[in-house]
């Protein structure tokens, strides 16, 4: 049941991201709902749900928008692993936790994309990527993540999803 709800949430996030959210680009940048939800699940529910969210979100994005199948799944799995592991060192109810985690996740995602596309022979301007993509997306993601982290915290508690616990390393 938990896996089904996590996967369905990622699916709904993907549909919103590719349709409705296209209308609210800010300075040409979209909030990345997939990575935001991934961080929320990874921090709130830790490893198994984080991985479930990563696989669901990654596969959907790979089917439709990836230059090669598997890129987004690999990136999201790495982010889910890292965020789940790192979040054990943070106080779960702190408002800073989702912001630090989403900042890490966004940078980690772009870093992996740069490495993969570099080996694929693509050329890009690193400063332009940082200033025009990473930085604006990070700011928008941080706002969205902070809000969704609070909302999901309440919803998950109400529907019986137990948090992995404070200061937990599991």
């Amino acid at each position, binding site marked *: 049941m938990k896996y089904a709800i996590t996967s369905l949430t990622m699916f709904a996030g*993907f*549909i*919103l*991201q*590719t*349709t*409705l*959210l*296209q*209308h609210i*680009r800010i300075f*040409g*940048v*979209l909030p*990345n*709902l*997939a990575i935001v939800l991934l961080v929320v699940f990874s921090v709130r529910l830790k490893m198994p749900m984080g991985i479930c969210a990563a696989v669901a979100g990654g596969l*959907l*994005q790979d*089917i*439709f*928008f990836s*230059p*090669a*199948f*598997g*890129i987004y*799944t*690999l990136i999201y*799995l790495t982010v889910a*692993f890292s965020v789940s592991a790192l979040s054990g060192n943070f106080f779960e109810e702190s408002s800073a936790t989702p912001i630090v985690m989403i900042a890490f996740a966004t940078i980690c995602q772009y870093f992996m*994309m740069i490495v*993969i*596309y570099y080996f*694929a022979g*693509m050329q*890009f*301007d690193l400063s*332009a*990527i940082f200033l*025009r*993509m990473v930085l604006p*997306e990070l700011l928008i993601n941080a706002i969205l993540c902070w809000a969704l982290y609070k909302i999901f915290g309440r919803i998950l508690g109400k529907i019986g999803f137990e948090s992995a616990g404070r200061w937990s390393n599991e």
Partner: protein
Amino acid sequence: MNEFKKKKIMAGIAILLLLFLIVATFGGGGEISPIENFAGKNIALLQRGFTVGADFFGNIFNPVANVWRLDKINKELEIENQELRRKLIAATLSQKEMKDLSEMEKALNYAEMKGYDYLTCDVVSKDPGTWFNMFIINKGTSDGVYQEQAVINGDGLIGIVYEAGKDWAKVVSIIDNRSSVSFKLLDEKNFSIGIVEGGTERGLSGYLFDPKAEVYAGQEIITSGLGIYPEGLLIGTVSDVIIEKNELLKRIKVEQVVDFKTINRVMVLLPPEEVEGR
């Protein structure tokens, strides 16, 4: 073997499998696999519903949100502008080398002359990221859409079909990182050619092969016909010319004519052999 080791081995296998898939599928295979096809066909239907809804509400709220931009006047001017561009292309090309282009009737008044037909498609969904610029259309191989067919709208060139499924296809726009288009200047006397590419910066950037070619801001560029894009499709307007003494090329920045944020209907150009086969 303890639980931790098992998890480590499983994670290792998953990473290796994903890396293998990435290497095996990079660059697109032309046709989409049956599993992707099944998923894409069904999800695309749902996405189309959301897109139609979003467009409907977007059309209602956007003019209100942008009241100072006088949306209505803007739209009228855009239509007038499109018409003038079509006339300009027809006039300029006919003067230089394509006298028989006067009968242009369809998209960009272009398709019929070249023996092309076009297929109107709806945009189902757009790339969720900011790195690439790809979108999904609701027509596929069953309608005659295949890899490397040009995609246009009334404004000009949009991109190219990247992969095609049975009832849907992926389109890479010309402002995408992976895009590269051969162009020529739309000028009565000067038909210099070059390459424009998409990238991380806004708009397109490129270069002219001839460093002595005369190019200035405001000049329009069209596809040259070299490579996969057919000749004569409007790409954009030169916004800046950069002359670097160390390089033997004249670099340009181009403002594309198509507004990629608002496209919701596009036309796929079907090559002559495809039209005959239908």
